[in-house]
């Protein structure tokens, strides 16, 4: 994850998590693994970062947690799953809008490999 400043990306951790939850409920490690795979190993979210995002978003009503017990065959283990709420979907949309705007604004000042 060389090159990514955690200050910059912090504002978008929530967006990434919510995106993953749009389809299915998921749990901590699965979410962090998905983020790593989707970003081609470029971004690795720390456990504490992930948990603080969960905790904050749950308080704000964007996600809900539930405990999944191992199934009758004893497969899987007891895990906390998170699922997105209606409010969370709205928030996700807002964050996407915000990103387009941010990108548009910042892009004006970016010149890759260019010389002055």
């Amino acid at each position, binding site marked *: 994850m060389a090159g990514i400043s955690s200050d910059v990306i912090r504002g978008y951790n929530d967006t990434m998590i919510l995106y993953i939850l749009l389809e299915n409920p998921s*749990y901590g*490690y699965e979410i*962090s693994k998905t983020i790593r795979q989707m970003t081609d190993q470029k971004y690795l979210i*720390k*456990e*504490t*970062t992930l*948990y603080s995002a969960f*905790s904050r978003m749950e308080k704000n009503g964007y996600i809900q947690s539930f405990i999944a017990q191992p199934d009758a065959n004893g497969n899987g283990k007891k895990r*906390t799953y998170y699922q997105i709420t209606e409010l969370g979907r709205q928030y996700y949309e807002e964050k996407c809008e915000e990103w387009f705007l941010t990108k548009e604004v910042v892009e004006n000042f970016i010149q890759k490999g260019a010389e002055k």
Partner: protein
Amino acid sequence: MNTLKSYLESMFAKMPNTREVLRAKDELWQMMEDKYMELIAEGKNENEAVGTVISEFGNLEELSGVLGLENAFSYQPTGGDTTQEAGIYDRQPLSFEEAKQYVDELVRQGFFVSIGVMLCIFSVIWPILCETFNWSQALGVTGMMLFIAAAVFLFVYSGIMVGKWDYIKKGNYMIDFDTAKVMQNEQSRFRKDYAVRLTIGIILCVLCWLPSMVIEETALGRIDQFENMGAVFLFIIVGIGVMMIVYSSMTMEAYKQILKINDIRLVSGNYVRASGKEKYINPTVETIMSLYWPTVTSVYLIWSFLTFDWHLTWVIWPVAAIISGVVKANLTVKE
């Protein structure tokens, strides 16, 4: 995996014992465990897996906001501030060696005290022997006093030896997860021994009158000198029984002492909750009960020396123990 568990426990050890904190710990553990399992499944060895998980764990300060612990990480002891809230964040860790030595010293004290108590009980045998065999009374008194003096020496000596660890009781200390685990294991290993020794001790005390009954009921009773020997055997048996009870109880207490160092208000108090301390329901009862055993001892000694009815006065002990048991059962609450 144990390394990871210890790592997480030590990170959380000083955190206050709240629902939010425990939940955070639990969920972080789920994630760490999942990640570890997957790394192992990918063919990493244990060290690599542990290293990766720890390096990617992050920083607990990040959680201070969601856990409502903004002050926990920036807390600086201010010297004058002795509020309880402040106290829980500036605990000193006690090293494993210190904890071990402390427990060993307490166990040793238990041994010395139990021998001392036994000598006190044995001391009354001297006057009886002197009376039986017509030795001089001076010898009886001297023997008795020597035994008591030896006992007092053992009490004082062991008290002073343990005294050097007083700072542990007074200071703000905690033991880490691994130490607590080792101590807990030792305690549970000792538990069987404890039960056996305690039972034998109690049986000896209960059956102490057996020799004197046998002597009275059989031909031995008709020999003059055996008449008093029943009492001698009684004291020997009671002495050994009490010694076993005191020694085993004090050894058990030693483990409890070290395990209860961790405060219940801290997360680290969770892994010692099993040894939850019993408290009297109010301070008055606590004060009265703290004087209980000294009072019983004084009554025992005063009554005994005034009447010299040693063969009767020992009854105080079992009676006192029963009363204490009743009081404890009714007037204490688990913390």
